[in-house]
């Protein structure tokens, strides 16, 4: 053996020893973990190796990780799932959401609020989903899943959305089950001006593909009956979005004019209809949400309906919508469940929204700020609150993709030594 070989062997042994001493790439230490799917709500350290959760335990030695982030006083949770967004961003001048300006590119809006998975709510249909995939999904660091619109061209414009001749359950189901089962989680029905024809086709597609349907049930003048929607058209597991919208001229509300939750709405929830917030630019009013919360009608999923018309208005971001519910009396762990384990269950992606060993390392770190905060609804009314959720750090597949205060970074002077 030549000396060179000796040196190589020694170096290899050292490297091996080093790897054994530091089996983890990243250790998030000292934080309060809320991981509803694994029943955890307490002090836990989370260790990441490559893109995977390697260990979750009350106390993991700092020496075992190449990089350690001190999370004392902070919360950590599975990377958030925003189950209702519009991210089919494009520049087609005649389009509004499909390949249009109303959609946003996801990475610029997700990681900063702890979101690692979004579900596009029917921006595309079976005709233009391939374009959406090439243009946005394949190019995003954010995990983008989607509900496929029952309308062939998705949300190209209001006119295409009325065309029953281009709502084809067989085509939609085929795309979900055969072509893109890894991305497509369900079917969307929205913005229809007629009766129940569109939602019925969406449910037909949902049955054919065995996936849930999400329904935006506005824009009917006069409004169609949501009681009939819940009991005659949807199935348990199907999703009603824009739950706390107030626009009684074109959308039946869940809370009546005397501020009472309609009893059949609770019955629908009991039967398994899933209620999604879908805040958006026009679909969240405190005059609906506050009485509903007080009377025990809570949403199953908290989501943003992110797009250009909502992000600068009352919605802002997912942390802001979560904070509204926190200030309306929902305990923090219940808020977290509604952006992690619950949506994961609703879209049947149980591996997401949880931090068991072996799960993909999608993690968010946030703090709950105390102070005087105001929260806007879409009609310009304010609710005062005392707590605000602020995301600090986001990990997507083991990589730090957002670090508001540089918590994971070394001090700048360290490179001068």
């Amino acid at each position, binding site marked *: 053996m030549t000396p060179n070989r000796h040196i190589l062997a020694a170096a290899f042994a050292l490297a091996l020893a080093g790897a054994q001493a530091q089996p983890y790439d990243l250790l998030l230490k000292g934080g309060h973990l809320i991981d509803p799917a694994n029943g955890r709500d307490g002090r836990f350290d989370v260790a990441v190796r490559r893109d995977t959760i390697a260990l979750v335990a009350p106390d993991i030695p700092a020496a075992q990780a190449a990089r350690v982030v001190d999370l004392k006083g902070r919360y950590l949770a599975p990377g958030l799932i925003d189950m209702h967004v519009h991210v089919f961003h494009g520049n087609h001048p005649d389009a509004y959401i499909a390949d249009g300006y109303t959609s946003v590119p996801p990475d610029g809006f997700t990681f900063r609020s702890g979101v690692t998975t979004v579900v596009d709510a029917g921006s595309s249909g079976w005709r233009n989903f391939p374009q959406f995939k090439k243009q946005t999904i394949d190019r995003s660091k954010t995990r983008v899943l989607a509900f496929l619109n029952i309308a062939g061209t998705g949300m190209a414009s209001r006119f295409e959305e009325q065309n029953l001749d281009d709502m084809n359950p067989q085509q939609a189901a085929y795309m979900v089950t055969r072509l893109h089962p890894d991305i497509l989680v369900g079917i969307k029905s929205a913005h229809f001006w007629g009766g129940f024809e569109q939602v019925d086709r969406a449910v037909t597609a949902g049955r054919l593909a065995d996936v849930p349907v999400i329904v935006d049930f506005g824009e009917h003048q006069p409004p169609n009956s949501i009681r009939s929607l819940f009991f005659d058209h949807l199935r348990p597991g199907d999703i009603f979005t824009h739950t706390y919208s107030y626009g009684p001229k074109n959308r039946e509300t869940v809370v009546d004019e005397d501020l009472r939750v309609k009893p059949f709405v609770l*019955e629908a*929830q009991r039967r398994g209809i899933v209620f999604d917030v879908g805040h958006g630019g026009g679909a969240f009013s405190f005059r609906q949400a506050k009485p509903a919360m007080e009377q025990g009608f*809570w949403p199953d999923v908290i989501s943003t309906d992110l797009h250009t018309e909502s992000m600068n208005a009352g919605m802002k971001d997912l942390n802001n919508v979560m904070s509204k519910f926190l200030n309306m009396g929902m305990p923090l762990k219940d808020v977290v469940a509604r952006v992690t384990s619950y949506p994961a269950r609703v879209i049947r992606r149980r591996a997401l929204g949880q931090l068991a060993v072996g799960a993909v390392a999608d993690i968010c770190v946030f703090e709950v700020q105390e102070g005087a905060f105001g929260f806007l609804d879409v009609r310009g009314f304010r609710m005062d609150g005392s707590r605000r959720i602020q995301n600090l750090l986001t990990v997507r597949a083991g990589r730090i993709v957002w670090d508001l205060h540089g918590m994971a970074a070394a001090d700048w002077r360290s490179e001068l030594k």
Partner: protein
Amino acid sequence: MSPVMRLRLAIALCLALGPRYTSAQGEAPVSPPVARYDLLLRGGRVLDPRSGRDGRYDVAVHDGRIARIARRIDPATARRVASVRGLLVTAGLVDIHTHVFAGSGTGRFADGTSSVNPDQHCPMQGVTTVVDAGTSGWRNFEALHRQVMEPSRTRVLAFLNIAGAGMSGKPAEEDSADMGWPAARAMLAAHADRIVGIKVGHYTRPGEWPLQVAREMADSARLPVFVECHLPEIPLARQLAFLRPGDIMTHCFEQVSEREPFVLPDGSLRAEVLEARSRGVLFDLGHGGAGFWFDQAIPAIRAGFLPSTLGTDMHRNSLQASMKSLPSVMSKCLAMGMTLPEVVARATWEPARAIRRPDIGHLAEGAPADIAVFRIERGHFGYVDAGGRRIVGRRRLSAEMTLRDGRVTWDLQGRSADPWGR
């Protein structure tokens, strides 16, 4: 109506009804031609812990309710008379811990073959009310309602499991992502007449999540929490720390590896158990197949630690093992030194109070006529625990008659029947 019309109506009514309700020519009223009561239980020893009544009384039943309780009620006032002389008359028993979500699913409790049909087992035990201990959750409670509650003559109430699909086996029943959904709260509100508490148990993963969820759901609906065991990762002291006055922990005399036993080797009770009792936490016996051990029960009872209620944990297997029936569990408690009033209270009024149903579990005029009649047999009777050990008692309770809402649902010797040949 004008005064004239009113007068005409009065005259017409007198003409129509007069002959039936007044005697002719002003004679003294005749005795009523029809009996006032549907059934008279005559000559039994009435034991009603709520009122403290204990003695020889007649009990008259009419229209589904207890119409009268008195030292002596004229048998001529009843259409049917059952002599229960020498027998014990109590309120229909309330079994606070059962699994009755019977269905066709093999090897599971929820909608499965491990549960039993209440009407096949309860009347012959003197049981008129059972509480299903969380066999269903919100996803299948309405199936329990449809399949069992509605068609059963036995009154079936339930603790709702925090697991969405109840006791449907692992891994579903310990999926914390399926706990606490708003639909469960909606279920509590919609079925407040049937759901009497929140059940938590059978969760082998680390963490206290299920107890937290159960606590919040119970508090939001102002219902008690019912803790079954099989929570191996949560120490007993932590479980007890979650419980408030009126909450219930079952399997109190269990001796298994997954939960610290209540009684220490020196025969004394754990301090945290005594502390919990002193602040009003209730402890159910919850016999079941493995939940009852003389090594625990006998020292505890000697130390004055009596179970709050005598739930049987009736299911397919426990029925055939050492549990057998609620009267058998009561008899076993007599054999261990509890008194008859103590035993009867813990199978009637105490469970009714625990589930906050003061309308049942007692014998009072106006109450639903849920009544049990027992023979107290005397002799040498063997009673066995989950460890296969036997003790011998001198008394055994066996149900002679059961009434549910005034209907005879069990009548071992035909006491309420007409004699043949008359």
